[in-house]
């Protein structure tokens, strides 16, 4: 029976992998010795310290390999948010004599947007590029926005909400021609689609451990050799003076293991498996339910991302109903974002707020099955019907006072 396990225990279905992924058992196993046995400080000269140092450097190699970088270009941080802050503020401070202009997009993660807004308060100028109805950025618009004051372009690799994969390689060419630094927030893509930093043409790339079956509290900033950057966190000389603070050894080891496993899965064709499940969800739900829109691009999208808007109902009430059936999902509705307005991403692709409030994001991961997808396809239309019966809008938005 769908959503229900044996003995009355509910079999839960997790489809919120863009929020966080379960830590892989192998990752946990790799981390364990670094809490209680190999607990040395990697900066210590003794054998305890040196075994921790070796583990950190081994992890660095694995992460570098996953993205086609040199291990010396990998800086471990406290997470994706820190990496974004580091890249943007670090470039801004270190290059402010060259110029004070930064280019980004309207659909970036808040870690990027708030870093940019912070810099605006300190004399920098920021251009927030628009996106098309699929959430895609036009490389030509990047070109047009570049001035002689521009020091940094930061555009996300793929959007966390609608899954749109941006033309980073094309933007990279434009940015390189202008001789400007290029950063990409790659938190949603690393380990999920093949990435090569040289092919993409980026100088900096942010990643997060817990989005690729690694632990929370650890991230990476890929920093191309020769990049002029100020550090965000000052203190000791760890990470070649780029990021102070005693290394999170267990976390870093976990990140390394997660990178290694992600590379294996990519070779084994996990992407195709997820695309198949994703497209089945999209196809069957949109066939079964009317007044539904797909957000993001049908093809240029993350393998596990489904984002739909159901008209006349609100996202949180959908999530609560799904949760009662054991299905974990997310929404861009205001109620779930903790703000009063619906998602800035959904508004940027041109959706009116009342439709943006009805968004549902299902993000698939490596352990999701055909059976789970079938279950969601079965229960979701019933939930939509139930909520539409409560709605004052029926089949149209007639009577909506804006």
């Amino acid at each position: 029976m769908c959503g229900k396990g044996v003995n009355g225990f509910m079999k839960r279905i997790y489809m919120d992998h863009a929020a966080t992924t379960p830590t892989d058992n192998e990752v946990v196993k790799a981390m364990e010795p670094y809490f209680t046995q190999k607990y040395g400080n990697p900066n210590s000269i003794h054998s305890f310290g040196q075994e921790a140092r070796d583990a950190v450097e081994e992890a660095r190699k694995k992460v570098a390999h996953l993205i086609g970088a040199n291990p010396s270009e990998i800086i471990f941080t406290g997470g994706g948010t820190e990496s974004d802050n580091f890249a943007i503020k670090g470039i801004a401070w270190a290059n402010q004599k060259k110029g004070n202009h930064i280019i980004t997009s309207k659909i970036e993660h808040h870690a990027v947007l708030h870093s940019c807004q912070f810099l605006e308060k300190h004399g920098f100028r920021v251009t927030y590029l628009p996106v098309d109805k699929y959430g895609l950025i036009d490389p030509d618009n990047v070109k047009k926005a570049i001035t002689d004051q521009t020091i940094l372009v930061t555009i996300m690799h793929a959007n966390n909400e609608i899954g749109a994969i941006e033309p980073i390689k094309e933007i990279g060419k434009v940015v390189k021609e202008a001789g400007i630094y290029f950063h990409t927030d790659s938190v949603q893509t690393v380990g999920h689609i093949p990435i090569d930093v040289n092919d993409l043409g980026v100088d900096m790339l942010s990643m997060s451990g817990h989005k690729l079956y690694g632990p929370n509290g650890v991230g990476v900033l890929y920093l191309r050799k020769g990049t002029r950057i100020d550090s965000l966190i000052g203190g000791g000389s760890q990470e070649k003076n780029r990021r102070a603070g005693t290394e999170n050894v267990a976390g870093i080891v976990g990140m390394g293991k997660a990178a290694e496993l992600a590379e294996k899965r990519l070779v084994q064709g996990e992407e195709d498996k997820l695309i198949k499940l994703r497209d089945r969800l999209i196809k069957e739900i949109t066939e079964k339910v009317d007044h539904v829109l797909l957000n993001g691009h049908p093809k240029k999208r993350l393998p596990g991302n489904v984002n739909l808007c159901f008209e006349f109902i609100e996202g949180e009430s959908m999530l609560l109903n799904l949760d009662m059936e054991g299905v974990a999902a997310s929404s861009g509705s205001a109620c779930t974002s903790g703000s009063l307005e619906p998602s800035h991403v959904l508004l940027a692709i041109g959706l009116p707020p009342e439709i943006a409030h009805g968004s549902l994001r299902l993000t698939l991961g490596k352990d999701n099955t055909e059976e789970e997808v079938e279950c969601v396809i079965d229960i979701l239309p019933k939930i939509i019907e139930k909520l539409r019966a409560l709605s004052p809008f029926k089949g149209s938005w007639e009577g909506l006072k804006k």
Partner: protein
Amino acid sequence: MSMYSDKVMEHFKNPHNVGEIKDADGIGEVGNPICGDIMKIYIKVKDDKIVDCKFKTFGCGAAIATSSMVTEMVKGKTIEEALEISNKTVAEALGGLPPIKMHCSNLAADGLSKAIEDYKKKIQDSKLKTEIKNQCKKM
């Protein structure tokens, strides 16, 4: 989800008095599409008492639960008593709401007062009409 009280979830799972009243004596609408909560409250009044109340709501769990709760609370009350119901008392009757929901989705009592306002206006209008009719007759 543990963000809501059991009482809220109870009303959310099985909302009471969902629907429209075709010949309603008063209709109140509150909310806006930006916040994503829109409520429509319908009342039926007989001898100054609210004898029926129904709702239709576009909104989150709190919006649906408060709508359901207010329709339950108001039945059988006089107009004067009904006007004493506030957003706060609705939230209390539900065992509280998460702080962020207190101002954005807790509108049901406002919807009810608007419905009562609508009812009063209708009564006045019809009184006025009869008065005018009577005066015309006298002339």
